[in-house]
Each structure stands twice: as structure tokens, then as C-alpha cells.
């Protein structure tokens, strides 16, 4: 208690431990397709929390027993790199908390992925936490959305997620790890297009009076995140289209065989 009481969650100047104001999210950056061998992958960095998600599929289920006759089966596995959290030992794959994160991600995405388009197939999502500074679950959800988009899996909407903490009566958005260990928080995941909430999970108790406000602020924050992510996705798609156009130019690529093109490019 002695050490945690010296962390000032919100100081007199209305600033948080890391210099943000209550309604400011951490800096985000996104990378698409960092894993070339996956069907789709993305790395999402929110502050110092970094999560890479690789998506394989839709593909033939590895065991027949897992096949569902009318839709795709969603498999999520979560791993945490040993170096991601200083002071915390290596987490094994069987770790209960990681299993729970995985189950939460699966439940969050099941209603949004149009899995009826891929009957009798399997979509595997591998989540790897590379750096953790609070908010593993929300960042993993955001990264999964990007990776699924990268893999071209059909979805009805983006899912974006955010943690919302409560300091006395003041909601704080996107908690970093010192904040996460000190104050109660709620993780919200929503479909920003409709404002529907697919996930709202609490591990600590908060007062019921505050819940409504926190949820509403969280959903609003998800919309902001979605705009940011959509911008990145469009930018990337733009450059891809650009490249495809280049390749489609008749005098350079037209009528060539693949092997010829390889020679050209060297």
C-alpha cells in the first residue's frame, strides 16, 4: 500500500501519471502484415503495449471433430512474450488468465465475423503480446480486428476496444499499467458503426451510478479509435491499389509470365 499510495492517479493540474488528460488516449501505431506466412496479420501498439495477431484461414480444420457444418470455427490462442512484462515471470500457454483473454476475444468476434460464409472451416487467431503496459485485452481486440481485415475475412463492422478506469468520480480512458493496478476499470468493446457493445467486462467493483457514464464514454472512445484504424486501413489499401495499378500497366507487366517478371524486377 505504501508504494502504490505514492502514485498520483490524477494531479491538481488534471494530468495523469504519464502526462495525459483524462480523455486522451495513448499514441497508437499500426503495422499490417508483419508476419508474411500468415494469411493476415497486424501489429497494434497503444502506448507501450504491443500486440501482434496472426490470422490463418479460413482453412480446413486441423481435426475433423472441430468442424461445424454451417459456419466457421473460431480458434484463439494467446501467448505472452517473457520480456513483455518486467518482473513477471514467463507465462505458460496453459495460464488461466491467458485462456480467459482468448475466450473473451473469441466471444467478442463470433457475432461479427460472417462465419456462415465459411462452413466447415476454421479461422485461427494467434495473439502474441510483445510489450505490456496496461490494456492487453483492448489492444489485442483492436489488433485482431486489423489482422482479420488484413486476411480478408468478412465482418459486419470493425470491433474496437478500450479500457475505462474510474478515479473517484472521474472516468479515465485507456489506462497504463500503473493506473490499471490502482483503480477499478472496465473494458469495453463495441461496433462503432452501430454503437452496439459486444463486450463490457469488469474485474473489480465499481459503483453502479458510475457505470452508465463510463460505458458511454468508452463507446465514444471506441468510435475515435475506429476512425483512426479505418484511416490506416484505407491508407494501406490505397497503396496496394496504387501498386496493383502499376503492375497492370500494359507496357510493363501486360502479357508477361510470372517468371519473366521476376527477371525484370532484378
Amino acid at each position, binding site marked *: *500500500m505504501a508504494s502504490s499510495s*505514492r502514485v*498520483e492517479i490524477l*494531479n*491538481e*493540474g*488534471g*494530468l495523469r*501519471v*504519464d*502526462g*495525459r*488528460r*483524462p*480523455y*486522451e*488516449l*495513448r*499514441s*497508437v501505431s499500426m503495422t499490417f502484415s508483419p508476419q508474411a506466412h500468415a494469411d493476415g496479420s497486424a501489429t497494434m501498439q497503444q*502506448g*507501450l503495449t504491443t500486440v501482434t495477431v496472426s490470422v490463418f484461414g479460413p482453412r480446413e480444420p486441423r481435426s475433423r471433430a472441430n468442424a461445424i457444418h454451417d459456419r466457421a470455427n473460431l480458434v484463439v490462442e494467446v501467448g505472452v512474450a517473457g520480456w513483455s512484462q*518486467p*518482473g513477471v515471470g514467463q507465462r505458460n500457454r496453459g495460464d488461466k488468465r491467458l485462456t480467459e483473454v482468448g475466450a473473451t476475444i473469441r466471444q467478442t468476434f463470433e457475432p461479427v465475423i460472417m462465419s456462415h460464409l465459411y462452413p466447415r472451416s476454421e479461422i485461427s487467431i494467434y495473439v502474441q503480446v510483445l510489450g505490456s*503496459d496496461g490494456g492487453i485485452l483492448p489492444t489485442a481486440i483492436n489488433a485482431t480486428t486489423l489482422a482479420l481485415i488484413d486476411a480478408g475475412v468478412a465482418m459486419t463492422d470493425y470491433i474496437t476496444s478500450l479500457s475505462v478506469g*474510474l478515479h*473517484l*468520480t472521474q472516468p479515465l*480512458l485507456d489506462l*497504463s499499467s*500503473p493506473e490499471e493496478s490502482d483503480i477499478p476499470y472496465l473494458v469495453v468493446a463495441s461496433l462503432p458503426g452501430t454503437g452496439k457493445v459486444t463486450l463490457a467486462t469488469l474485474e473489480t*467493483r*465499481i*459503483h*453502479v*451510478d*458510475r457505470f*452508465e*457514464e463510463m460505458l*458511454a*464514454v468508452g463507446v*465514444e*472512445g471506441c468510435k*475515435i*479509435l475506429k476512425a*483512426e484504424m479505418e484511416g490506416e486501413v484505407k491508407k494501406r489499401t490505397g497503396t496496394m491499389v496504387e501498386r496493383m495499378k502499376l503492375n497492370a500497366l500494359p507496357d510493363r507487366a501486360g502479357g508477361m509470365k510470372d517468371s519473366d517478371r521476376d527477371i525484370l524486377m532484378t
Partner: protein
Amino acid sequence: MTSNFSIPQITILKRTREDLAFAQKKFLKKTKKGRVVKILRERYLRSDIPCGYEACAECSSYPGYKAVLPVEGARGHGKFTSKAGHWLVIDTNIVLHQIDVLESLPAGIPIILPSTTLAETRHRSLPLYNRLQSLLADEDRKVWIFWNEERRETATKVERYRTGGQESASRTGDEEDVEDGMNVIETEDKDGKIVRETVNDRNDRAIRLTLEFYQNHLKTITPSRSTATHPSLVLLTDDRGNREKALASGFHAVSTREYVDGMTDELTKITLGDLVAVKYGPEGGDRPPGSKGGSAKRLYPEYLPQATLLAGVKSGVFHQGYFNANPYNYLEGNVNAQAFGKPILLVGRESMNRAIDGDVVVVEMLPEAEWKAPGQEVLDQDEALKNDDADDEEGDAEEGQQSEARMAEIEKKTAASAAKQNAVEKRPTGKVVGIVKRNWRAYVCHLDASSLSNKDATSLAQQTVFATPLERKLPRIRLRTRQAPSLLDQKVLISIDAWPPHSRYPEGHFVRALGKVESKEAEQESLLLEYEVPYRPFGRAILNCLPVEGESWVVPPKEDGNLIWRDREDLRDLLICSIDPPGCQDIDDALHARPLPNGNIEAGVHIADVSHFVHADNPMDAEAASRGTTVYLVDKRIDMLPSLLGTNLCSLRPFVERLAFSAIWELTPDGDIVGVRFTKSVIASKEAFTYQAAQNRKDDKSLQDPLTEGIRLLNRLAIKLKQKRIAAGALSLSSPELKIHLNSNEGAPEPIDVEQKAMLETNSLVEEFMLLANISVAKRIQEAYPQTAVLRRHMPPPQTNFETLQDILAKRKGLSLDVSSSKALADSLDKCVDPGHPEFNTLVRIMATRCMLAAEYFCAGSVSKDTFGHYGLATPIYTHFTSPIRRYADVLAHRQLAAAIGYTTLHPSLLSKSHVERAMSVVNRRHRLAQMAGRASVEFYVGLALKARGKRAGRDDGGVTREDAFVIRVFKNGLAVFVPTLGLEGLITFSKDSHEYDAEQYQLAVPNSEGNKVDISVFDTVVVDISLEKDKQTQRSKVKMALVSPADSEQL
């Protein structure tokens, strides 16, 4: 779904490339297990941190902006004569060492407090941080916190990233020239000065960056027409290195001493001058008065480094604990450490090594051959050291050393002889090798007249003098002051700054004078300070929480459908009255009773609805929580809540409508509870009785009105309830309670006489119903909030506490005391009667009370459920609900009950166990201190009353009073007696050895005036003379008792 909040603007903070050098903080931290962990924290820089200047248009649009720094700075300083005045920038060492100066600086001086200073203070000392906070909360002061670490221009780059970040920083320097803060780091980097700088250096640099920022920032603002320039910035720091660097960069910098000496106002100069703390150590500053070029001899061994101490404590070589000084022997102290069954003894000045009562010290054990037994004699440092000269170290060095050596020799002898006497009872003995934490505060002292070299009242010369603290456990404090002669007959507040190893005494500085010795104001204030009672008037922020209508606030008419009436019962028609002691202004409780048609009785207790006015989590609530309780002194009351609430809006005055929280029972005529309900209500009290008036009304057979009948009904029930309580084993204990008669016809109240408080039937009536209410509420909130309910308990005392008393009773009176349960104790106490000695029973009860533990507040979830019980009241569960005006625990109980009955929702803080636990520990401590302060106040007035009695008797010898007293303890060389009429306890010592002591029988045989032996034993009645004696040098007065009959102690 209705929402009463608006969605705020949400943004993502994008980090720019230039900020990367500042983006992360990396540091190492040691875990509890001893592993070293690398911790990485993110950091964001901002450009929307306002400067706080009234004339700045740019910053005014930033969030949370409220300009504090005025266009015209402070003037009236000899050194800084800028036309627009100056602002002060405060370095951390000022807060850490010169907080007294800071607090007494004229409020008109604008102050910039860099967040570096604030953060470092918070890290180093929480008490100082809290004092700084109250300074910030003072709205009259112009203090601006500048969040320098968050502002882009002034943030310090993290050491780790210096090499990596250089590239990006230099690039920005090329592209844009706006990033001034960056350039500064760049240039200093090139100097190579800060390649590996310490935290302290970095913080100093951060503060200098702040200076630089303001200088450049002010250039962009057009100055106001009246002054034509901006105020100049002055860095106040006692760190010589920082000062020199700042001066070299062209800023103004000054030490506290210089700044105070340069003030043009003579009066402030003198008062502030005394507050400046002497500062030693490598950081530069003043040299201690005695050390001439470091030639001073070390009197004490140096402390070991902190790391060695911690390692030693961990490995068991050293022991850590609180240092308790012995009040009777200034050369002896002990430390409560876990390792040994008994406390570790420290004998002699060198062993105690500058520890002061309350410090957390580390002790090294001496070899067992050197272990000693505690001394049996009383050693008074005022007596032993009265010839010690405060100035001697300033005189001739050689002579000074000689006298030091002489002194040391004498002290060693006395300490050794005191300790040797009893070689059998050897105790583990050790010496202090280091201090983990100093627990110094400001102490109330008297100046020692003999230490003054110049007593001329007009002298303003600097003198070194001694101050003797009121608390006997503390050593004398040496200080330098210019006001010594005028402070001689005053009580003064002194705070200790340091205790260097070459100084016999701790060095301190003068904080403020409290007033003349024995003047009531000074005594009262010193009492409040000694017991740490917060007595400052309520600040503006707190008063702003009061209803805007002020005195004229009334309960709005019911017909208006006002929110106040929501879920509130209208009990205005009930015949409710209050019964309180005479002159009571804060009436928290009122009662009613009426027969019901079914033969049962409805009884109600109505408690002031304080939680309606005091909402959780506002400044008033925070203040009440920290005050904890109202403190009652004999002629003064220090309120917990502002008096508008306490004595008016919440007070259940008669003939007006007031908000209340009511507990209403249906009771059978035998006092059994049929049912209880709680409700918020509006009541109109019909009468405010005193205990006496209510008693008279009840006893007056001619009165048959419903109100009187109500009182009779209540009384009948109370008797039934009391019987039940006694049958369950409730104790009726006794502690002497006194009432001081004050004669107030001449403005200043003069104590005339003391008498013991009388108990009437109506006292018991009110008490019974309050207990009933508290118990019912306790049950209810415990059901609703099993984890966080605010309860009160009284632990059963360990049986060993009673052993001595049982032994005395058995041997002297042949009586036995059964302490197996509270019921057994109550019964056997009833049997302790001596027909020839009517007050004997009370005496036994008083002595039994002293064997008990103190009752305490606690949080229901923190202890196991079977320890909830209240021993004294013999109830399984108890809380405090009935006095929310004067106790904070009651306010919390009100909030929890209101939520339990669904009236409001519970504030989240009351659902947090750790929060409630913290609140309870504050309230418990405040409660204990308040009781001690109250008792000390009574004691002071008893002293005055004794004097007054003497005067009335026409004597002028300081007033000797002759009284009967009971012997409560027998010593080898004296008696402890108790004077019931005055509630005083005193020690009578015999200097001659003409008596015989029988420890087995608790008996002394003393020769009387005719030479015959007379036995005096415990419980005997004796006659004593009581007088006040005043110490000539220190003005401290103590009660002195002398035995008159059966023998005269003068001859013993």
C-alpha cells in the same frame, strides 16, 4: 435511458518524432523479495500547460486555466528592485527545510511552484507534502503550480536516452528554433556536464529550465501599460550549486537567509529571520555555530549509511524500532524491538545517539557483559545541566572542548551509577547506530532564562539560547533568535532542524510565539498543538460547501414538492424534545415516546441529519474526516464542522423545523423490541431541556401534559432497558469527571471551583436510548455492508491486566474480583463495598477501569466477526450514530444507513475497505488525542482553581489546598495518591529513609510526629496538601503534593 452527463471531447495523443527522446522513463526498482526489476513508463509532453500569468492571452485557452500570477509581483525587497516586482520560484530544498518560512511569507508574494518540487516533496516526506498542499489550498496566496515536467519546453530528457536521442534533438534544432528547452539540453550536453547527473542535479536543472521557459514565454506577452515590464523571476534555493549555476545563466537566485535579510519591511524581516532553519550538510548553506573550520569535536558517533542499516536489520545484526525516551531519566531510553521479549535499553547520551522520542531507530546490541539494568532514580536534565551554556561552542574553542569533556565525564558517571544499582535485573542493552525515520514536529517550549546572555528587553541582538520542551521526554533545543528577551515569559513553538554529531543539543528554529505563560490563550493553544488538534479556522473552500442561504436556511414548505421532502417522513406533529447539558449548542439528538393502541409503546430517537449537508468527497467532508471529532476544552470547543451547521442548521433546536434521521421502535412495556424502522424525517422539537429541567418536569406530579407524559414514558422504558443491560453484564465503570465552574461576569472566565459531575435519572434516560439507537443501527449497517460497515468495539481486557488489583484486594480487603467475563466482573465489583468507607467502591471501579483496553472504531470486514463485541456495554455489536455533529464516524454510519434503507446510493469510497480502514485509523487517533487534550485542559483549570481558592482564603503562597486522598499505589520511597474531589493524581516521595516498605502487603510503615510507626497501605485515606510549584527558569508549573496526616511527609 436518461443521462445527466455530456460526452467529452476524446482525442488520441499522437507522439511526434521530436518527442521520442522524452517518451519513456526507465528506472530500476527493487521488489519486496529483493529482486531488481527494470520499469518502463511512458511519458507524454504537452504544449497546453498554462503559465498562470494574468496577462498571458495564449495560455488562457488551455483547459483548467485560472490565472493566479498577478501583473505586479512582490515589491519591498532590497535586492530585487524591478519595477514590476518579482515572483519567487521555489526549489525543493526550501519546502523540505524552510517550510516554516514558506508558510509565513507575506501572502502577497506570488510563488511559482515547479511540479518537480511538488513531486520530490511528495516522494521525500508526506507530512511536508500535506503542509504544502494546505498552503496551495489557501486562496489568499498566489501560488501557481507549473507542470514543468509535462510541458514540452521544460521537460528534462531522460538520461538513458541521451545518446540515442541526441540525433533527433539536433535535427529539430536545425529545422526550427522554437524548441528552446531542447537547445538548452543540447548545449549542456556538449559541455559534458550532465553525462551522468544525479537525480538531484536533474531536478535542479528542471527548475532552471522552468526559469528559462518563463523568461522566454514572458517575452512573447505584451506587458501591461501600468508597469511596462513583466515581473522578474527569483529562484529561492539553499543549494549553493544550483544557485551558482542559475546566476551563471543570468537568472536571479537567492538563498532563504539572503532573501529574508534583504526584505525592506523590518517587522517581517525579524519574524521571518527567526524562522529560517539552519542547514548543514554537503549541499552548502550556513555553517553550524560551533564548528570553526571543522575543528569541533564529535560528541556522537556518525550514523551508518542507510543501506548498511537496512541490510543489518534484515540479517538480524541490528534491530529496528521506535525510540521511547524515559521521562524520568534523560540519559535513558528504550526501543521496542521484536527480537527480545522486553524493550532494548539504551543508557547514556552516546548510546541514544541523537534519537528523539518517536523516531524510528536502528540499534546495535552491546555484548552481554555490558548489559545493564534500568536506573531507579529520577534524573532531571533541567537540574543536571542547568549550568550548561548554550553559547559555549561559540566561545574559545579550547575552553569549549574542556567543558565538553568535563560534562561528558560527569554524565557518564551519573548514567553508570544510575544503571549499576540493580545488577540483577539486567536488560538487553544496545546503542543507536542509525535513524530510519525522524518523527519530528513543532514542539511547544519555554525559553530557558539562564541561557540568555543579554536579557535587555530592547536588545535585538542575535543570541543562542535553550528552549525546554513542555514534553519531558524531549531534550533541550538550541536555537538562534533575535527576539529572545521578549520571548522569555512566553510559550513558543520550536521546530527541530537537525542534530549534528558535534552538537550536544539538537538545533532548532523559532516558529512562533503562542502568548504569555499561564495566559489562557497561550495554554490553550499549546495544548492544542501538543495534542495535534487541528484548530485553524475553516478555509473558504470549506465554507463554500455550506448552503448559500446561510443562517436563514429553512426547511422548504412540503407543498412545494422540493427534493428535500422526497422519501422524508413528516414527523413535525410528534411531541419531540431534546435533553442536553446546560449551555449545549450542538444538539444532535431528540426523543419522543407515545403509547400505541395495541398497548405497546412507540419510541423514537431523532438525530441531526448531518449527511444531508455534508456530502461525501467535498472539501468540508475531507476536513471533517481529518479533524475526526470535535474537541471540548474547558472553555472552548474546536468544532469538527463549521459552526453554521453544528450550532444552527444541524442542531435540533426547539421551535424550528429541522432535518433529522430517525430511528423509531415499537417496544413492549417491558422494553422488548417488537420492531424498528429508520427513516429520514423532518421534525420540529417542542422543547430543549437541560437534564435538570427534564428531571424537574418529570418529578412534578402536577404536570399531566402529553410532553411530560412522554418523558415519563421514556424514563420507564429506560429503566427497563438499563436493567436488561446490567443483567447481560454491562459494566458501570467510573472515571472521575469534573466540572469546572467558570465565573464569566467580567468577560474573561475565571475558574472558581471544581466539583464532580452529578448523575441524574434523565442522564441515564438519554444514554439508554442512544445506546439502543447505536446498537440497532450497527446491526442494520452490518447486515447491509458486511465488508465496510463502520462499527465500534471494546475488546475484553486480558486477565493479566487485573492481577495486581486482584492481589491488592485479596490482601488488603479480603475481597475477590472475578474477571472471567464482563458479567462476572460487574457482579464482583458490586460486592466490593466497605461499610465504613462509602467511596471505596468508586475507587475500585476507577482502578478497574484503568485495567481495561480502549474502545475503538473499526471496519467490519477487517476483523473476524467474533471480535465485534463491546465488552463494557456487553452487546455483540455497536457503532456510533447519535452524534454526527461532533464525531466523523457517526457521519459515515449515517451515510451507510441512508444507503441501507434505500434513501440514497452509497458513495463508492464507503464500499472500499481500505478507504474505510484508513478513515477509522484517523478517527481513532483523533479521538484519543482529543480525550487527552480535554483532560489536560481540565488539569490546567484545576491548577488555576487551586490558585483561586488560595487567594480567596487570603493566602498568597500560591494556594495550598488541603484535601482527602486515597492511596492507590505504594512505592519503595513514596506513595501515589488520588484526590477524588479534584480528580488529581500525585506522587509523594520521602527523602529520608526512616520508613519501612512491605511490598507483599502493599504497605508502608512511617513514623508520625510523635515518633510512633503508622501503617499506610493501598486504599487508605490520607490528608494531603496540594500546591502549585513553578520552576524559576522555565516557568513550568507542576502540582506538588505533601502528606499531612497520618504523618507529615516533610519529615520523611
